[in-house]
């Protein structure tokens, strides 16, 4: 597995646990990834939209299957999310530090889902690359 594959700009990303609060990581990560990747979907059942953009209640509601799911939620929610991810055929999951659990990681390993954990997005690096690519 190469982490670089997760970071390819052509990927479609779903961020599970997007927040409307600009102070929270769920907001910062979503906004930063939007600058870098082709298409980024917000997922959180609490919101119908976030700052004017559509927010989906779960992965099954998305209009297309994302290449990568990023989790910014509590570990027990991540465990639910990856089960849905498996059901709809998602092959790559990036668990932001704090959202991972041993059970979630082992579930991914058992089910052939590539899983990144213990790594943070380099927010400035992504932002600058995104700015450069338009």
């Amino acid at each position, binding site marked *: 597995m190469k*982490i670089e594959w997760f970071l390819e700009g052509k990927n479609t990303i779903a961020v599970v646990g997007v927040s409307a609060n600009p102070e929270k990581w769920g907001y910062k990560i979503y906004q930063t990834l939007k600058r870098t990747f082709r298409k980024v979907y917000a997922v959180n059942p609490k919101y119908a939209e976030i700052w004017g953009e559509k927010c989906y209640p779960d992965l099954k509601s998305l209009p297309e299957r994302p290449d990568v799911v990023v989790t910014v939620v509590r570990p027990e929610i991540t465990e639910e999310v990856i089960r849905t991810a498996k059901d709809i055929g998602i092959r790559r999951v990036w668990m932001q530090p704090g959202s991972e659990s041993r059970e979630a990681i082992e579930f991914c390993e058992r089910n052939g889902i590539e899983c990144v954990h*213990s*790594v*943070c997005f*380099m927010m400035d*690096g992504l932002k600058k690359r995104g700015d450069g690519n338009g």
Partner: protein
Amino acid sequence: MGTDDLEEIRKRKMEEMLKKIKYPTKPLELNEGNFEELVKRYPLIVIDFWSERCPPCRLIAPLIEELAKELSGKVVFGKLDVDRNPSTATRFGVMAIPTLLVFRNGEVVDRIVGAVPKEFILGRLRKCLDEDVKK
């Protein structure tokens, strides 16, 4: 002169060369001002691209301290704060942290992304050290 003799000479020359360089036993603090000079000064230097706000970076920080001590004389370790030095991180394509970049004679020869066990880092570095001895 046999192959074993040549191998012995290579090893001895490498050891002599390494003795001439003053090796630190703690990770060096790198920044955009001293980066170029330090990566060129040491034959093998590992730079830990990190941030205070990144929990996995804090997880591997003690390992880097230990490795700097244990491998002193062979490998130099350095740390670069990506929040304070974003342009260096971007220049080397660091998009996730922690990232360890291994420089040999000023060139990137290996990249380890994420908080990985100490043995994993050691294994990758041994490869670099073995290649140095063969040269």
